[in-house]
């Protein structure tokens, strides 16, 4: 039982042949995609995607590009952190995009200023008292609404045994209805200055990476993380092993809801407006990030780091398309192929690793 032994029965185990972690494959895909864009950039644009070829910055990188690559995925990335956990339990969350829409409308109504250019703001939902509230109010409302949506999802899935696809599909429709009903389809704009700070500049990125780090730790080193993986791996076994599966699932969906709520707050703050159509199809993008990052839809496998890299892959692709000025019609086609390609690469790597072993 010395620290160096890996097993029992005095068997030798050849450590050098250990399979490398899956995240490395995803990282390799990211690097491959960057290289492809650099090559295409050099050929067609005589420019580099990530490096500064025009001496506009003090560094060797094109800083503006690096920043937008991550800014544009930070908000959906925050949603994807929750979606990752849900998928690891072998669940799915189709509601996150619509929950963002509903939460955006509701939170923003508590973030409005009283005066716009000398005239009282015409869009307040609740009347005078709800204007110019301290920034904590809309933030808490946003988190709260997201958590309630998550609580309902979790309750339906964990206690009513409704398949996650259906429960969250129902919530998707419900939340979309709420988003439109809230202000009868009218946009809600003009937040307080304090609220506008949340989503400005690199703040979304800082929040995204900070939360990623937190959840990376939680998933790997805490009981919560272990039980999340266990449930996704074999729910019956987890139940028989004495895990309170329903309570745990509830917690997972509430966390996912809170993250969607937070994303809505940042989104409205960044755009200084809330629109009922906001968040549309974010759920698919968040799921794509997780899955490109190696999270298995059958549950039990995946990681936060993988999802973060998955988000970066989507960010690089989006920026790369604009960089190459790829025609708008082709972007969706190529995006579709790249998502499939990234996962195919990952599959092929794993197969090769298994065969070569």
């Amino acid at each position, binding site marked *: 039982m010395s620290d160096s032994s890996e097993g029992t029965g005095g068997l030798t185990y050849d450590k050098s042949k250990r399979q490398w972690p899956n995240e490395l494959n995803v990282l390799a895909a990211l690097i491959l995609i960057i290289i492809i864009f650099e090559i295409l950039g050099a050929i067609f644009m005589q*420019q580099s995607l990530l490096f500064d070829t*025009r001496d*506009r910055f003090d560094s060797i990188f*094109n800083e*503006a*590009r690096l*920043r*937008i690559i991550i*800014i*544009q995925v930070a*908000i959906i990335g925050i949603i994807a952190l929750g979606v990752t956990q849900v998928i690891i339990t072998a669940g799915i969350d189709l509601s996150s995009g619509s929950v963002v829409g509903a939460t955006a409308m509701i939170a923003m109504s508590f973030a409005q200023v009283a005066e*716009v*250019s000398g005239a009282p703001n*015409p*869009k307040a939902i609740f009347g005078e008292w709800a204007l110019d509230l301290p920034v904590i109010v809309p933030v808490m409302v946003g988190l709260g609404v997201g958590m309630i949506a998550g609580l309902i999802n979790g309750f339906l899935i964990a206690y009513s045994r409704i398949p996650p696809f259906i429960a969250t599909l129902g919530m998707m429709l419900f939340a979309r209805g709420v*988003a*439109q009903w809230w202000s*009868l*389809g*009218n*946009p809600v*704009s*003009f937040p307080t200055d304090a609220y506008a700070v949340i989503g*400005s*500049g690199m703040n979304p990125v800082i929040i995204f990476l900070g939360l990623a780090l937190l959840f990376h730790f939680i998933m790997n080193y805490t009981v919560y993380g272990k039980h999340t993986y266990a449930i996704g791996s074999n729910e019956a076994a987890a139940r028989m092993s004495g895990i309170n599966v329903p309570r745990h699932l509830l917690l997972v969906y509430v966390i996912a809801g809170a993250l969607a709520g937070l994303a809505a707050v940042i*989104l409205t703050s*960044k*755009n*200084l*407006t809330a*629109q*009922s*159509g*906001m968040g549309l199809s974010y759920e698919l993008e968040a799921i794509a990030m997780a899955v490109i990052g190696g999270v298995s839809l059958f549950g039990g496998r995946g990681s936060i780091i993988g999802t973060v890299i998955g988000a970066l892959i989507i960010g690089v692709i*989006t*920026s790369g398309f*604009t*960089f190459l*000025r790829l025609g*708008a*019609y082709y*972007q969706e086609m190529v995006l579709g192929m790249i998502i499939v390609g990234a996962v195919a690469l990952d599959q092929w790597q794993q197969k090769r690793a298994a065969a070569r072993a």
Partner: protein
Amino acid sequence: QQIGVSVARFDDNGLTVMRNGMTAFDEANDDVSLQIEDATDDVAKQLDQINNFIASGVDAIIVNAVDTNATEAMSNAAAAAGVPLVYVNRQPINMDTLPEGQAFVASNEIESGTLAAFQMCRDLRAAGKSGGATAYMLMGQLSNQAAVQRSKDFHDVIGMDMCNFITLIDEQTANWSRDEANDLMTNWISSGEPFDAVFGNNDEMALGAIQAMKAAGISMDDVVVGGVDATSDALLSMQAGEMDVTVFQDLAGQGAGSIETAIALINGEEVDRTVFIPFKLVTPDNIGDFLQ
């Protein structure tokens, strides 16, 4: 009277203004009862909604078409059931062959993009850039006819002799969304290409571009930004000297007008088959007319 209304989509800013006009009319008139449905941008669903209205025995139907090419099937269904039908906001393809008891209250989408693009061209000339100017265009959802039309309008305008000094650097879709437009504009800025104008197929996207340019430290005096819709956010931005051009259409008026026409049809009155409501150009010079 019971009137069924099918609107292309509920989460659309412009169409919401039109809907508000209808609702206001409904509330002011006790003898009218509206049932407004959301076609969620689905042609087939819209046709089904019309058939559902017919099954429920409504007195008239108002349609804000998802796809103006799909109106023939709708006209046929309503005519077969003998229910009056009014098209609103978007001009039906079968306008020349509309059956008895049908009419339309619409605007001509060609105007909106042309008005905005031409004014941008004039602004660029006025700024002394007639020797050569560059522009980006943010397109709406590629499956949306307003997006297709307004993009085409822009191309047509910069193809005219007077405006062909403008070169389009790139055009991409931001799906009508301020957030996507903000990110897309930031991507463009990161390529370092200088530009003089940005045209958004709608105001939301123009506003997203403005936010991205401001974040990148670009002075809004140097760039001509145009949009369509004249939303209150856009008017405010124009007052602040950021947005330069937008286009207003009297959507609330269209909404109310469509109901009046429907009631006239129900009562068997003689009505104009076409009620044409023009777009109006909005610039800092005449913005006062549009602030409520």
